[in-house]
């Protein structure tokens, strides 16, 4: 090691991002349990909602067409939640301090986790759709509608992953991050994901219709199966962008504030 290495140059934004994305993807691939969960959970949920609950909720047998968007979001929410644990783990390990004392944009370490989460969850979405088609899902969407639906799903994953990343930054430890993140996983049940909001008591309907999941569900459902979308698409995009920007600002602020403190 005696011969001097190259003089210290600063790694560019692009190199830093790709290195951190590569790191987080490696983490994802090596976390075997989480990876198996990401594939098994969509299969289990699809079977559960189609064959166990489906008959009771809609005896006509078309419940699978109704429930697919809900299961996509349920899995995406579950999949994104591990970002909180990953981020909190990095923030409580000394490695973050090493990154911060290097002449790089250290916030890109979070970008790495977010990108890996997007990849994992798009894979899980693919599994949900594949499984849905096997159990009788018959979407009416054309190519553009599919593209639109995938775009909305990706935006939703991105927004919630950043939200979980911010939770991971704020939480003091990985287990605290996991606990805080858990609450959010109930949001899909209080929406039009599994039953129409019109079947709920009026006070609950108010909650369900004014939270971000319902417009996202209605938009995806409309694009895939042709139900009316109306202004729900704008609400969906607006909610996702709002969550995305707010989480990014909150996360960045916390990231900078926590320097040197663990």
């Amino acid at each position, binding site marked *: *090691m005696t011969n001097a290495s*190259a*003089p210290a140059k600063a790694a560019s934004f692009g190199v830093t991002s790709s*290195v951190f994305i*590569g790191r987080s993807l490696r983490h994802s691939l*090596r*976390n075997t349990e989480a990876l198996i969960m990401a594939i098994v959970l969509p299969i289990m949920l699809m079977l559960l909602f189609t064959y166990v609950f489906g008959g009771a909720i809609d005896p006509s047998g078309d419940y699978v067409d109704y429930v697919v968007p809900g299961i996509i979001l349920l899995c995406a929410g579950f999949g994104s939640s591990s970002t909180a644990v990953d981020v909190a783990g990095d923030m409580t390990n000394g*490695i973050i*301090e090493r990154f*911060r004392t290097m002449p790089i944009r250290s916030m890109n370490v979070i970008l790495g986790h977010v990108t890996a989460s997007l990849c994992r969850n798009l894979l899980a979405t693919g599994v949900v759709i594949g499984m849905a088609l096997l159990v009788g899902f018959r979407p009416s969407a054309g190519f553009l509608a599919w593209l639109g639906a995938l775009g909305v799903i990706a935006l939703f994953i991105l927004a919630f992953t950043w939200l979980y990343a911010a939770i991971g930054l704020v939480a003091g430890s990985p287990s605290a991050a996991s606990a805080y993140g858990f609450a959010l996983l109930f949001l899909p049940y209080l929406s039009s994901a599994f039953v129409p909001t019109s079947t709920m008591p009026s006070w609950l309907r108010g909650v369900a219709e004014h939270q971000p999941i319902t417009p996202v569900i209605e938009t995806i459902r409309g694009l895939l199966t042709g139900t009316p979308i109306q202004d729900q698409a704008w609400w969906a995009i607006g909610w996702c962008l709002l969550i995305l920007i707010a989480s990014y600002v909150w996360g960045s602020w916390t990231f900078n504030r926590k320097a040197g403190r663990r």
Partner: protein
Amino acid sequence: MITPAIEVSGLRKSFGAQTVLDGIDLTVPKGSIFALLGPNGAGKTTLIHILSTLVAPDAGSARVGGHDVVADKAGVKRSVSLTGQFAAVDEILTAEENLRMMGRLSGLTPPEARARADQLLAHFDLAAAARKRVKTFSGGMRRRLDLAVSLVVDRPILFLDEPTTGLDTRSRRALWDIILELAGRGITIFLTTQYLEEADQLADTIAVIAHGRVVACGTAEALKSRIGGDVLELIGANDEIIREIPTDGSIRAVQQSLEELARTAPAGARVGIRKPSMDDVFLALTSNPREGTFS
């Protein structure tokens, strides 16, 4: 005059109501090993965090490698490498992947990063474990990798925060050899430690820090002459320490102390002799030792 590697004057930092650094002044010449010796909570880590730009000081100034830690953070970051108190390596990656990642982040091309990783793995006796995940490493291996990661690119100043805490004697000695070798190559080393012996073995200059102030600064020899030599202990029948007498380590002084103890010792008591500990250092150097917690 040559610019010192590190110059600190009047540095202050509080977290809320708690004053952590209460006016620190020190100078570290280029190419030397500087040890900051102090108990837990003395402010050692906070000082390293300020010098490596992680934390901003409340008052005072610090220049590292000629760059101001507040006004020119980027300049400081290009001059230093930090090895924190807890091994800052990625446990899910292998040793090789850790080194390559840091190489890439330091601006090396992929082939350069790979070559550098192989070099460091061989040098730090980690070649056999190169493809194993760090999760499976022992404490000593982890620390060696941690240090190797700090050396992926040459930075003129290396911060080591308690580099050997938690290591067994053999790993500690191996790490000391590496630190001495690095200093031999002209790297300025600023380390913190709780062990008097470690500071004595490694450092050209030792600063003793307590309650956020430097209470003594000088060579190991100068410091030891102020602290004294071996300490005699009078131990009671139930292993409780009845009395401690610091000596200068000479036969005559020990003999005198023994005679004094012989006159006063209760039945069943015995005598022990030990090296001065951190507690003794602080008793000798601070006027109000009661405030200190020497855990």
